[in-house]
């Protein structure tokens, strides 16, 4: 009974597809509520499985696992899914993007993520990954009147297919030398191989790093983030990151513990490059979605620090989980504000559009302020505690220099977050928009307030959240 959430979602997707086909257009809102209810129910089912204790249940002949990592990741995936759809609703209705299909594709993607984080063999990992990715390509392409969106979808699809190919190639190498697909068996078999296994590791990692969007496979991130409709960007930037994190951690820590020395070094290079290029290139952007895209590359770099410190510290993995969960929370809020701002039929995704926001809507500006300072890692926002956990893990793993380096990149990064704050607070709005109020519907207001205040409150009282994110040692 461990796969209840996935089976439930699958059934519901089929039912909703059928229901939606017979619903008149004006009642399509029912589809939306059905999908939210599905996610909420899946969230409840998963929460019931959350025991805190490290009970590892393998089922479906070794292809499916239920453990801390899977349950925690799923909770976050469903939660962020719900938020992403709330934020998306008004935007896609206003723009006449195919309404029900959008949510259904999203739900399929969430099902893929769900399968992926629970996957225990390379076969189910690949299936989950593809189920995750294909609907995302379609979701990006859905905004079909936009040139940018079409280009982004094309780029995303081709590069994504390439990455899947690489992942598959790596899997086949590993299968070739071990003859196993199940992760623990692969792990046991790999302890005797070396050089060829490293080849496999590199290809698998290339595929994963692509999904993560870290340097050197980061080229798609800015284009897709910018080109996709903002709610889609929000969706891509939230739940899939958690799933990619979970699967990277599972493959590296469970299937390849014997290759630790190699993947720690590879991750180190990737993390440093991601933090460097992400933070540096973000400074040069004048489109806020693009800026967030580069900032997400940098944040992925930080998350990888936790994974690479994991084997030599007590809480590296948990710190990385906490980091990615809180980052996604904050990033979702950031994109949500862009969505809210953009509702009047124009995309307000230039930095200049945020000039003087404090004068036009102080509460929205304050929420953005909280989210930005959280991304910059300034206490008492939650982003600080996320970084603190990573730094502790790094120092414990005797990588003090890496901790210092990470912080120096954080300072560089704080500049472009501060620049947005500067625009919002220190400047007056352009005269053309000064008198135009920023209209925010009550449901959006509630969601964004919850999101922004969470960034502050989890920062003040982080203990509960950190305990949720605790992944027992693998």
């Amino acid at each position: 009974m461990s796969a209840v959430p996935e089976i439930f979602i699958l059934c519901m997707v089929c039912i909703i597809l059928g229901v939606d086909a017979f619903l008149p257009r004006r009642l399509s809102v029912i589809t939306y509520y059905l999908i939210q209810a599905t996610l909420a129910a899946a969230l409840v089912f998963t929460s019931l499985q959350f025991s805190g204790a490290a009970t590892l249940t393998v089922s479906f002949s070794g292809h499916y696992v239920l453990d801390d990592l899977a349950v925690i990741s799923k909770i976050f995936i469903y939660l962020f899914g719900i938020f992403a759809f709330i934020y998306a609703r008004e935007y896609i209705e206003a723009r006449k993007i195919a309404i029900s299909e959008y949510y259904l594709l999203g739900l399929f993607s969430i099902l893929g993520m769900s399968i992926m984080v629970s996957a225990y063999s390379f076969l189910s990992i690949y299936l989950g990954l593809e189920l995750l990715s294909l609907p995302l390509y379609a979701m990006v392409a859905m905004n079909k009147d936009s040139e940018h969106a079409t280009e982004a979808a094309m780029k995303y699809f081709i590069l994504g297919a390439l990455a899947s190919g690489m992942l598959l190639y790596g899997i086949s190498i590993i299968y070739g030398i071990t003859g196993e697909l199940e992760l623990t068996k692969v792990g046991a078999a790999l302890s005797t191989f070396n050089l060829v296994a490293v080849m496999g590791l590199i290809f698998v990692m290339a595929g994963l790093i692509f999904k993560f969007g870290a340097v050197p496979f980061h080229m798609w991130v800015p284009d897709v983030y910018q080109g996709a409709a903002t709610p889609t960007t929000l969706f891509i930037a939230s739940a899939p990151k958690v799933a990619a994190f979970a699967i990277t951690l599972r493959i590296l820590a469970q299937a390849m513990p014997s290759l630790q020395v190699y993947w720690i070094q590879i991750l180190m290079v990737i993390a440093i490059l991601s933090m460097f290029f992400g933070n540096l290139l973000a400074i040069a952007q004048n489109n806020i979605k693009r800026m967030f895209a580069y900032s997400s590359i940098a944040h992925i770099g930080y998350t990888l620090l936790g994974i690479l410190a994991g084997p030599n510290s007590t809480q590296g993995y948990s710190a990385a989980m906490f980091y990615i969960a809180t980052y996604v929370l904050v990033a979702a809020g950031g994109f949500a504000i862009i969505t809210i701002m953009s509702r009047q039929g124009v995309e307000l995704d230039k930095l200049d559009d945020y000039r003087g926001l404090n004068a036009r809507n102080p509460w929205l500006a304050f929420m953005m302020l909280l989210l930005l300072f959280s991304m910059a890692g300034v206490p008492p926002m939650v982003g600080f505690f996320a970084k603190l956990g990573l730094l502790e893990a790094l120092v414990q793993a005797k990588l003090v220099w890496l901790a210092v380096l990470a912080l120096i990149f954080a300072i560089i990064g704080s500049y472009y977050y501060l620049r947005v704050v500067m625009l919002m607070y220190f400047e007056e709005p352009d005269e053309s928009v000064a008198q135009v109020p920023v209209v925010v519907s009550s449901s959006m207001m509630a969601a964004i307030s919850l999101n922004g205040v969470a960034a502050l409150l989890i920062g003040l009282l982080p203990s509960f959240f950190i305990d949720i994110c605790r992944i027992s040692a693998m």
Partner: protein
Amino acid sequence: MLQHFPLLTLLIWLPVIGAFLILCTGNEKNANWARGIAVFITVVCLLLCIPLYLGFDPTRYDMQFMEDHLWVRAYETRYALGIDGISLVMVILTNFTGLLVIVAACQSIKIRVSQYMAAFLILQGMIVGVFCAMDAILFYVFWEGMLIPMYLSIGIWGSANRSYASIKFFLFTFLGSILMLVALIYLYNQTGSFLIQNFYGLPLSLHTQTWLFLAFLLAFAVKVPMFPVHTWLPDAHTEAPAGGSVVLAALMLKLGVYGFLRFSMPITPLACAKLAWLMIVLSLIAIVYIGLIAIVQRDMKKLIAYSSIAHMGFATLGCFMVYDIVSHMHSLQDAYMSLEGAVIQMVAHAFGSGAMFLGVGLLAERYYNHSRMIQDYGGVAHTMPIFAAFFMLFAMSNVGLPGTAGFVGEFMVIMSAFQTHFWVAMIASLTLLLSASYTLWMYKRVFFGPIGNDQVAAFRDVTWLEKTNYILLAIGVFFVGLYPQPIIDVLRVTIGHILLQSMPPDLAFNVPTTLYFA
């Protein structure tokens, strides 16, 4: 009884809660509500300092008014508050300054009143938090948390070049403190706890201590600010609104010295003793070189900002001279005076420069384009005689005239300096000359002579609200200058204790361990 009441928590969070209340009053229509609530909260906070002072037992060297709760289990971080003599003095000073700033803002701030009041209340709470925190991460959270309201206050209510100044301020201080964070985590890794007291007396090698010392140095030197990393201060001071300048000068700069006393000296005594020469040299550079720079400033706020750096040089000099004094004199008695001088200098400077910044703010507010240039004024004493008298007093305190606050600390530090090296004392004494030149020359050009222009001729003298502020500050200046005994009483045991903790083993070996600090 009083010891168990969470007074410190109240002092930290009451302003923060008040700030959110004020934000709820919304826009300019309710500006008077915002002003009223802000003044009320700060008065209550200042009144709360009375039981704090009365309940404080100056004969104990350990932390008092302790509060200790587990905060973040995963990181072993505790919500641990407590104060000793130095913290007590600084907490009272913070609340006093907070009230002054809010009262001054009631009149001078016209736009976004509620946000201004909220920013400064949060700032006040955070600063009190820094002085009370006994847990390193809690300390760091307050230390960094105060950057946000300060950054906003410079940026929103500052003058023309505010964006540049605010971002420079933020990045400088962020850069400094972030290495401190790594140092703190390293110490946590050694002890398994973030309580600052557990960091004391760790048997760390000189090599490790040196690295830790440098990490702390960067954090605190930026805040003080010391010579090579001082460049943010003139910009931040100049562009900040008057209230922001006052808080910066009176409180934020003190945090750096407080950090030296709380972290650098007790945790890394070996490195401190070894690198004391560096600190002395940097302090002397601040005193002389920055003093010289102050003379040529044409902007009044910049001049006072540079004079602040020079005066804080005395505080750092007093702190780090103790190692030389002990190794020369083999007695803690003389070192004690040096350290005490440093702390008194901190308090005195808060009154003197805080008052001067407030004064310049008042002048600029009356000038049509808010000019702070000395050349735009002249003969102000003719139109504003009462204000001129007050400003004279604060200028004299800045110069270090006996009987004012500025004298006591500088005198004590220079006296002790003679115990280390003649030349150190000589160079430090140059300040008497320098501070007299820049302060009095500025005073002469702004206040004396014929009335400079029509603007100045139209100046009206201080209102009753402003007068209240200046009377309070004048009381402070005379209090520290003429009768500093209550402050010294509170500080005595604490400073003696910090001094003992800050001695490296080989130096402490030479001195008697039981001492009575008179």
